């Protein structure tokens, strides 16, 4: 009876461990995929901003830091940084395009 109970307990613990490992693996894979998508969007936005000379100073640094954070498994930090880089690129692009061919003398010079 005691031996049977021992085997049942070992089976429960092993199953639990396997399930939880799989679950964590699924969550980690999902975060990884989500971050990879965001990173790719941020890099595309960087390329677009750069094409009109509108990239801001810290974008490259944020992207590097985001990749490092993801490599360390800190997806919350990685996502935050990649999102910041993407937003800055979008704003930089809008800034550059809005002035293309329009930047001229300020009012006090006219």
């Amino acid at each position, binding site marked *: 009876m005691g031996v049977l109970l021992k085997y049942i307990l070992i089976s429960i613990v092993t199953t639990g461990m396997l399930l939880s490992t799989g679950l964590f693996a699924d969550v980690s894979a999902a975060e990884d995929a989500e971050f990879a998508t965001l990173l790719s969007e941020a890099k595309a936005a960087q390329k677009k901003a*750069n094409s009109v*000379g*509108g*990239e*801001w*100073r*810290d*974008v*490259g640094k944020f992207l590097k830091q985001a990749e490092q954070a993801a490599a360390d498994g800190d997806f919350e930090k990685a996502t935050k940084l990649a999102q910041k880089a993407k937003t*800055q690129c979008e*704003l*930089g692009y809008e*800034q*550059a395009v809005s*002035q293309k*061919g329009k*930047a*001229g*003398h*300020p009012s*006090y*010079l*006219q």
Partner: protein
Amino acid sequence: MKNALIATVLVLVCSLFVQPLSASPEDNVRLYQDYFKKRFPNIDFQEFANGVYAVNAQLRENWEAIEEFPPYEPFVERGESMWNTAFANGKSYADCFQNGPGSKHLYPQWSKEQGKVITLALAINQCREANGEKPLKYKKGPINDILAYMAYESRGQLTNVVIPADDPRALEAYKQGKEFYFTRRGQLNFSCSHCHFSSSGMNLRSDVLSPAVGQTTGWPVYRSKWGTVGTLHRRYTGCNKQVRAKPFPAQGEEYRNLEYFHTHMSNGVVLNGPSSRK
């Protein structure tokens, strides 16, 4: 008929107040220089060559003390040695610069053959490459030695950037430089003019902002912050970073066109490089 008359009068009145879009580079120079003459009425025009030290007495006092033992002198001496040392093929810088080392007043210049603005730094590297030498880096290092020597030998000449009328590409390069100058960029959304026109002479934290006219005359510059002599394009890089914009490559088209416009603004101001700045 009455409406047409009113419209005509309105257009005429407005035209008195609006700078025409087709203003020539010469009109622009007058406009910019007049602006600074009015902004700093007690400053002799040639004093603009001294930048912030023309507009702030206390900083000037410190600067004059530094100039008693100019920190850029060793760079000038090394540059003279570079000038006098033959390349491996037996030729030297003198073979490229027909006017001798005092040629800074000829740059930046428009090259019809190359279809682009040639700065002195670029001309130096073109000379080196044409003679089988490696080009020098554009922001730090030995390029500052030869630039410092050539600037020193050019002292006393006047800034005289020419926009040749026989090549519309030259005017286009000037206009691109002008657009760069007045374009807001970076996270701080500043253009060059925000600091060096309407805020010139004012404090930015512990620094005083220099007027745009005269800013190009003293390069290369020994900056205390750098602890060495650096090029104008290194400074452009720093300015762009300060407004949190990604800088452009030194001697790339953007900064060469900017230098063309920026230097043209100081036409008539004496060359006084190399110089020292905070």
